[in-house]
């Protein structure tokens, strides 16, 4: 794997290999000394054009546990805020001789440009681009699901037959897009659930079912329900009338959570709007995988960075 730009680029075999490698990384977390020497002497830049403390510290933890040297390049207070272009930022980093770039950017496709325009010739990892993709989030979601289902026997397993509903602002969600590709590649059946205004314009755009009725989906067998963050700014765009109505019809309320099969995992990429798309009862329940997702994010990102930087011949 040269870069990780889109979850759609992963085939089943390489996805399972990455998840298995993340299991290896997770094992090391239980050791008293967590740090691995794998990327000693390598410099990784976290190039963040968008604020995201969660994702940045997850990558930074992964990089440090692999003994890489870490440079955080954030748009605020840098030349980027003075109008420097992506091209100039990339060429500057290339001139400094960095070994890999983890990029978070508000424009869809920015990681693709870094990987393919010839501005810089190092592995590129997409840490979220616009409303396009967030492939490491999908990997950590898949990893979390696989561990919950297969526990200590996860290695080598896929997600065949696993039914997942992804609920909320799908049209603006890079998490939903990456999960649609990766979970289905691993054999899961994915359904997008949202008001018609928040579903993708084309029903054929992803290999998933798209429905509007949350309660109908909840009556079916469901292995996991993933609630997406709702941004209040969507009300200005007339995507839905107000928060109360959204919660009433598409939120995971206490009533809906109470009626849910206790074996259905509750997932959320964070940060949550408690009381809007998800109730506290659900978020804090044993069914919730939310904190595991955060923990697993580090292992998955270690696996990704190790793969792109070592060529990972054994994968």
């Amino acid at each position: 794997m040269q870069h990780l730009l889109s979850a759609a680029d992963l085939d089943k075999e390489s996805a399972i290999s990455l998840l298995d490698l993340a299991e290896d990384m997770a094992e090391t977390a239980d050791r008293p000394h967590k740090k691995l020497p794998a990327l000693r002497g390598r410099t990784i830049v976290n190039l963040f054009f968008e604020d995201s403390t969660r994702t940045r510290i997850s990558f930074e933890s992964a990089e440090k546990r692999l003994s890489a040297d870490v440079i955080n390049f954030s748009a605020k207070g840098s030349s980027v805020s003075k109008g420097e272009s992506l091209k100039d930022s990339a060429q500057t980093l290339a001139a400094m001789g960095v070994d890999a770039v983890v990029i978070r950017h508000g424009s869809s496709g920015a990681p693709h440009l870094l990987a393919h325009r010839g501005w810089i010739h190092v592995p590129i990892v997409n840490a979220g681009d616009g409303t396009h993709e967030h492939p490491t989030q999908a990997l950590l979601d898949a990893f979390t699901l696989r561990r919950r289902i297969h526990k200590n026997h996860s290695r080598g397993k896929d997600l065949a037959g696993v039914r997942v509903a992804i609920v909320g602002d799908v049209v603006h969600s890079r998490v939903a897009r990456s999960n649609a590709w990766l979970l289905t590649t691993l054999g899961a059946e994915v359904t997008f659930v949202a008001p018609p205004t928040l579903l993708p314009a084309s029903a054929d755009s992803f290999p998933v079912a798209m429905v509007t009725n949350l309660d109908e989906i909840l009556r079916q067998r469901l292995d996991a329900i993933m609630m997406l963050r709702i941004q209040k700014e969507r009300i200005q765009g007339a995507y839905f009338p107000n928060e109360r109505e959204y919660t009433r019809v598409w939120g995971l309320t206490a009533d809906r959570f109470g009626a849910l099969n206790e074996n259905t995992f509750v997932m959320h990429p964070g940060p949550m709007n408690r009381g809007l798309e998800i109730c506290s009862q659900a978020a804090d329940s044993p069914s919730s995988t939310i904190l595991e997702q955060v923990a697993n994010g580090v292992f998955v990102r270690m696996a990704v960075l190790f793969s792109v930087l070592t060529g990972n011949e054994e994968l």
Partner: protein
Amino acid sequence: MSTSVTFAGATLPNGDVANVVVKNGRIVDMGVDVRADEGEVLDVSGLRVLPGFVDLHTHLREPGYEASETVLTGTQAAAIGGYTTVFAMANTLPVADTTSVVEMVWQRGHDAGYATVRPVGAVTVGLEGEALADLASMANSRARVRVFSDDGKCVADALLMRRALEYVGAFDGVIAQHAQEPRLTIGSQMNEGLVSSRLGLTGWPRVAEEVIIARDVLLAESTGARLHICHLSTAGAVDIVRSAKARGVRVTAEVTPHHLLLTDDSALDYDARFKVNPPLRTSDDVLAVRGGLADGTIDIVATDHAPHPTESKDCEWSEAAFGMVGLESALSIVNMTMVETGLLSWADVARVMSTNPAKIGGVGDTAGTLEVGRPADLVFVDPRVHRVFGPEDLGGRSANSPYFGREFPGKVVHTMRHGYFTVRDGSLIDAESVRSHAFADAGRVEDNG
């Protein structure tokens, strides 16, 4: 300087072979054995002669954006593409909403001499969509503006649009509408559909174009006024215009070469050279606009030549400017998509690239027709040549063409304006020679008289 040229063995739009004799800036004879009694005889056997192309939709960028294009460089690009008349869009800085700006642009074109430049006037002050610009004053100026457009922006206010349509009737003007409902296209980046969903780029839905066209043909119908639709791009829009024309509405429409050829899949690499407004649509839309051009629903091909500097395209898609240059590649694309597919004859090409745009723009009395007695605005095309299009094929100041590396059929060999060459054997004639010809010509073939 010879003032006579005999073009020997040209293939006329209707397929007949004839000599074309040019003298003192005009076509003086056409026929099998005719020739001038003096001057040069140029063998053009195998070449198609067409009336010089007329582009109703060109962005020359001057004044204000001279880093992208000027009147001189834009008309040089036009000459390379076989154009002898261009209509310069109004979204300059300052906006072409007063007599002084339109006269300045007209004068620059007149002096440069590569093409007749007809400025388009803004419909509203500053393209702000709030108050009508000095439409009659621009019409009465030396620039003799007949086409008015806020292109780049839509005249979204129905009252302003209605009044503008009515008002320009006083001088047989036309409103050229950039059909884009603004609220339906907030933040829009590319055609709304499967590709935009996958790429996570905000969609520009077809209906945002169609809803304005539907409204405006009804306004034109109710006022009896003349409406022109810029860069029509959707199958639904073709249907709306077709049915309006069947009812007798005075509506005309244009399609760009890129909407005849390219689809939204081009965005898959996030290469912003393919970012354009209205966006590239789907193959169904491409087939529909080709059909519309073939059956006369769409009257003309217009380039929407939109030069931008490198840095406006070599960046993130959502940061990039909309638009692509198109004057130099238009003929090849029309040849490829319409002639080689059997949808249009060469006589039809003359109609959609020259005769009709001249009529819509109000210059039909001097441009757009191959006829004895008319100013010698001619283009000679070799339809048999295949070439790989590259930066060396461009003639303007900007290189934001999406076509580099594509093989195109057909090429402009000679372009003649008012009896003097602007392009000969595929090469641009130098600015000083063209300027002196234009100066000599000014008293002879008065393009604004």
